[in-house]
């Protein structure tokens, strides 16, 4: 069932066991799983069926630190959430991403890749993905990795009919949960805002917060403040360890030979370090996106190379007449070191129309990440030399220790951390089952539970974790 307003929902007699906040990939996936298990669920969605400026305005906020996207641009507030404009690039976190890195504090998850692997066939079905293929090592240091460019499922569109027909799932649109109330053991109710005014409280046995990787922290910080710690009793890490995938053009390459890898339909190939290389260099994970550029792009690179390395330029010219493939741009996205100082705070001065403080995002890239970017390109460049696949040129700003450019992609719109998973309650907010520490009936879905970000786009892992949480809760509730 889908209701266009809270008023319309109230007119029917539907008692929910579980209340999910948010209808993005996380919320929709969990709702479908619980519904399929015969558990009555209400999904409260702040936005309507369509984009609107008014709804989007609730997402405004400020960033302090490094340049970042406007917070009302980097996500969408209507049915289906940010899946309405995601690019559909899919890959699940690497198994080593779940392991602690001795050289990077506060890394390591309380679960492993094996815990989400059983859900990957379901994820493939939901996101319409072909089979995952194993990574292909092209040297001891570098893996050629698969990044699937999927059809970019819009969750609101794809599942609207199914949800509308469902007897167990009620999606209630234009209903904003402004706050949860709790007594330090249980969440008692969600306070609602609908039709431009307070709409009372909604009660259920279980609550799952799936409002997105920025909003989950905001809602819980505000709820906790209002209920004197009654919603997140162990709140030291709440809002902290927030992460993105910074993304910059780090250099170019001349390619002669593609025998070790293939480019995809959009002329791109993706590379990451081997676990051994990361450990040896004490760097984070990264992904190099090699974009084959049009043939004329190679001329300026060869001219530049001729001044530096005549022999190489000759080799290139020879290859050119033989089978030189092209020049390429090298974009690098990397795993951020999880830092408590990168955090979501509540604004002290600015509130949204419902009176909820807006987000103040504190975010800065670290020195370890800068080293990851530079050493990563060196690793890749060395691999191309050793295998005689081509040559890499590191961008001037990076090679010369300059500032990050401000006119580039900046990051991936991937909002991770803030309510991270863990066993240490001073450094995490939820346990390995995504249940808030100290609370009996409060869970969190989405990438805010990520302990570390890995290098890949998050939604495949979000959906896998959502399937797992759906199964877990079905068992807990069914027992």
């Amino acid at each position: 069932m889908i209701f266009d307003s809270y008023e319309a929902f109230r007119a029917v007699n539907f008692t929910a066991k579980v209340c999910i906040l948010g209808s993005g990939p996380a919320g929709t996936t969990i709702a479908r799983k619980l519904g399929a298990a015969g558990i009555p669920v209400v999904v409260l969605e702040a936005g309507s069926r369509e984009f609107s400026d008014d709804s989007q305005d609730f997402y405004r906020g400020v960033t302090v630190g490094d340049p970042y996207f406007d917070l009302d641009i980097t996500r969408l507030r209507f049915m289906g959430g940010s899946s309405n404009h995601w690019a559909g690039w899919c890959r699940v976190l690497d198994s080593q991403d779940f392991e602690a890195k001795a050289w990077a504090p506060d890394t390591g998850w309380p679960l492993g890749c094996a815990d989400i692997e059983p859900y990957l066939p379901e994820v493939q079905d939901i996101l319409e993905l072909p089979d995952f293929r194993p990574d292909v090592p092209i040297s001891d240091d570098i893996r050629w990795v698969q990044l699937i460019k999927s059809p970019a499922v819009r969750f609101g569109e794809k599942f609207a009919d199914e949800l509308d027909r469902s007897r167990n799932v009620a999606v209630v649109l234009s209903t904003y949960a402004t706050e949860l109330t709790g007594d330090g053991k249980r969440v008692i109710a969600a306070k609602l805002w609908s039709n431009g005014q307070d709409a009372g409280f909604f009660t259920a046995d279980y609550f799952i917060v799936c409002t997105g990787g920025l909003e989950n922290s905001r809602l819980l910080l505000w709820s906790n403040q209002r209920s004197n710690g009654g919603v997140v009793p162990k709140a030291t890490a709440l809002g902290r360890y927030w992460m993105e995938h910074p993304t910059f053009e780090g250099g170019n390459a001349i390619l002669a030979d593609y025998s070790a890898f293939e480019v995809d339909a959009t002329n791109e190939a993706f590379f990451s370090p081997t676990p051994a290389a990361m450990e040896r260099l004490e760097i984070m994970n990264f992904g190099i996106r090699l974009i084959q550029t049009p043939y004329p792009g190679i001329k300026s690179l060869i001219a530049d190379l001729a001044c530096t390395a005549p022999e190489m330029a000759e080799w290139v010219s020879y290859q050119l007449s033989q089978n030189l493939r092209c020049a390429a741009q090298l974009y690098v996205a990397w795993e951020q070191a999880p830092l408590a100082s990168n955090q979501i705070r509540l604004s002290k001065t600015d509130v949204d129309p419902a009176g909820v403080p807006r987000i103040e995002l504190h975010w800065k890239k670290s020195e370890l990440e800068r080293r990851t970017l530079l050493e990563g390109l060196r690793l890749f460049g060395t691999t191309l030399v050793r295998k005689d696949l081509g040559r890499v040129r590191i961008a001037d700003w990076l090679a010369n220790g300059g500032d990050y450019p401000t006119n580039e992609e900046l990051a991936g719109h991937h909002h991770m951390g803030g309510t991270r998973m863990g066993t240490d309650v001073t450094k995490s907010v939820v346990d390995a089952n995504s249940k808030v520490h100290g609370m009996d009936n409060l869970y969190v879905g989405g990438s805010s539970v990520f302990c570390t970000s890995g290098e890949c786009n998050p939604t495949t892992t979000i959906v896998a974790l959502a399937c797992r949480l759906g199964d877990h809760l079905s068992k807990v509730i069914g027992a």
Partner: protein
Amino acid sequence: MSFFTKKISRRTIMQALIALPALSLFRKLPDTDPDAIVEVNGWILKRSDLT
């Protein structure tokens, strides 16, 4: 005058200082391995690319 300059003449110190860069150059003999990786002007190359 310090103990150090009393014992060793200023000229000896200057000579030692001038000799230093040359000594360190000797210690770090130029790499002649044609397959060695070198970084020049941002390019990651094989030494033999430069010849």
